[in-house]
């Protein structure tokens, strides 16, 4: 009577089209020159997507490229190259992988041979953002500019009111929005200078409108995962986030979620879940995944554990829930959307002493998606996310006494941090804890 190992029942077939998106984004950078387009090294969730799309600027997503290198387990040579110039492994490995690649490309005069999917083109500009999400967004462009000194860098500062339980963020939101709007206007001016083209404001407005529609559709789609059994898992979401995260403001991104939503609705209708049987539902509560070990999600699924929801790469909300002031200025709209995305958990957090917006978000999802436990991934080189995980876990324990929490340790790109046997051992122990918790709850 050996324990039966059950395989993952189903992954979404819509997610199978994601490699085409990722590869398409990389090859767009390589084709840009012959198409007369400019390439901008850019960062996700920086509020600049629509500006680039409306000006036909091709984004070169360094985070995506490093993730691809990691997923193909082919990042080590780039990490070592960066390390040879004293970039520590404890720095963001998205950054160091990409900087190592840039260093090699500059030395060779072309993308290094064997670079995943042909690599990324040399940018014509770099758009950073000194916002509160993470420090590489302004230090990374500065660092890589040492090797590409002729490539201009423009770093905006898109701040949002920092969390202060004793203050009223509503009083200062408009000030932050005004500042963010000015920064976005400066970004447009910079892009106009580099491209030699003027912004088509009507086109920008249409692009922003399409983005809003995509945000709404994304949430409508993902909320289908509340269903028991859940039709889609975080393992898939780490792929299906691509159109929202890297192709926002494009029709292809919107169309992708139309297809995904239809597929999830059909799965619900057919009673098809990710795991069969679905024993435990847990939230991916924080952290970027180890891109070289996405198979771990299937390991969970094979044991009846599903992730109906994740905090990671859910960088949007239903626009109406953000209660944005009406404006005809698309940049002001982006600024409001940006600020409110971060602050709309503040009021809930204030009601729970000792809580924070990040914790409130997790609690909201645990309730809405009916989760039995939480998994955090502490990726050592992602300092901005690593910091605070223990506090979040401790607050969850206060709210949901004894809720099982697993804190996985690894990295996003650096595979030397990973040991599959030990990781699976921790997962097994966590699942046994879930069983005890559920039995106790009755």
């Amino acid at each position: 009577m050996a324990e039966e190992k059950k395989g993952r029942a189903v992954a979404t077939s819509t997610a199978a089209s994601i490699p085409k998106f990722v590869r398409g984004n990389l090859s767009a950078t390589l084709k840009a020159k012959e198409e007369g387009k400019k390439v901008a090294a850019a960062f996700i969730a920086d509020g600049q997507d629509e500006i680039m799309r409306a000006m036909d600027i091709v984004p070169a997503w360094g985070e995506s490229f490093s993730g691809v290198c990691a997923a193909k387990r082919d990042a080590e040579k780039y990490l070592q190259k960066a390390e040879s110039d004293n970039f520590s492994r404890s720095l963001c490995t998205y950054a160091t992988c990409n900087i190592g690649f840039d260093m090699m490309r500059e030395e060779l005069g072309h993308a290094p041979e064997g670079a995943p999917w042909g690599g990324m083109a040399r940018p014509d500009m770099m758009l950073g953002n000194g916002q509160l999400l993470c420090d590489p967004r302004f230090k990374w462009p500065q660092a890589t500019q040492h090797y590409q000194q002729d490539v201009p860098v423009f770093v905006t500062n898109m701040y949002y009111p920092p969390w202060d339980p004793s203050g009223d963020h509503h009083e200062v939101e408009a000030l932050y929005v005004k500042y963010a709007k000015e920064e976005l206007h400066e970004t447009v001016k910079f892009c106009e200078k580099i491209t030699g083209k003027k912004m088509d404001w009507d086109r920008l407005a249409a692009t922003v409108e399409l983005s809003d529609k995509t945000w709404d559709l994304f949430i409508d789609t993902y909320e289908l995962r509340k269903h028991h059994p859940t039709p889609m898992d975080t393992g898939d979401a780490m792929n299906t986030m691509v159109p929202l995260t890297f192709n926002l403001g494009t029709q292809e991104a919107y169309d992708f979620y139309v297809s995904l939503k239809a597929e999830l609705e059909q799965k619900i209708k057919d009673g098809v879940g990710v795991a069969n049987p679905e024993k435990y539902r847990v939230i991916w509560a924080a952290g970027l995944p180890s891109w070289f070990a996405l198979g771990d999600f299937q390991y969970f699924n094979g044991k009846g554990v599903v992730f109906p929801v994740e905090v990671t790469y859910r960088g949007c909300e239903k626009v109406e829930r953000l209660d944005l002031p009406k404006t005809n200025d698309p940049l002001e709209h982006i600024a409001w959307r940006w600020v409110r995305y971060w602050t709309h958990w503040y009021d809930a957090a204030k009601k729970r002493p000792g809580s924070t917006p990040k914790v409130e978000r997790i609690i909201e999802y645990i309730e809405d998606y009916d989760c039995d436990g939480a998994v955090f991934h502490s990726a050592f080189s992602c300092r901005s996310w690593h910091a605070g995980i223990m506090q979040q876990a401790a607050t969850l324990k206060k709210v949901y006494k004894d809720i099982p929490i697993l804190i996985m340790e690894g990295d996003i790109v650096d595979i030397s941090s990973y040991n599959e046997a030990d990781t699976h051992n921790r997962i097994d122990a966590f699942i046994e804890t879930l069983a005890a918790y559920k039995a106790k709850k009755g």
Partner: protein
Amino acid sequence: MDYFAGVDIGSTMTKVVIVSGRIESSLIGPTGPEHRKLANRVMEEALGQARLSFDDLTYIVATGYGRINVPFADRQITEITCHAKGLQSLLPSVKTVIDVGGQDSKGIKILNGKVMNFVMNDKCAAGTGRFLEIIADSLGVPLDKIGEISLTAEKIAPVSSTCTVFAEAEIISRLATGEPIANLIAGIHDAVATRIASMVKKLNVEPDIAVTGGGAKNIGLVKALGSKFGRELLVPPEPLITGALGAALMGKDIYEKYAAEGQKPTRIGKKLEEATFFK
């Protein structure tokens, strides 16, 4: 009479416990790269000690790092759960377990024999038995003596390095400056205890606290850990077999649960043979 066996294959030692209403036999043998595929031989010895045959066993649970290499087991359960179960039977008052193994260390919060939470260090040798093993080797002191030697120290010589390799280098250079070995060994125990305590304290530690694993056989480490938690720590009579005992008891629980539902599991087709994993 029903007999239940627990097989705990740790990174350093393999442990087998057979229980019925009491512990019928317990055996501890080295794991090692070749021994790991020979869990069957340790089991044979344990069966011999209990005067039983393999067919007398009703249910077998494998646990520990190498639990997948036990083809004759009916079920695999992690050592976290098995330690909790084993501890509950030996020291029922314990609510927090610190397990110091050869390759990792763990903190386990338990309630009525169930795991409520756990933390693990499996990333770094510092804070595990391996750290003490390496330092003992570099000092030329037998591993089983370092605990007692640390108690003879005049003072704790602080060891600043948190990395095993660098700590070894630091120890050698401190020896050259005339620092007594006992002080250095006390320093090393303090360093390991500090590291383990900072990890375990994430668990909202509640007494009683017990230490298990090979580290519990080191009186110096147990005392150093006790000082970090401000209380005396409990040690079961044979701290190495807690996991295997828990595995055997888990097997008993599982079997009885099945039996109560009228689904007695059979062991037909199970043979006491080595794992073919390495072939």
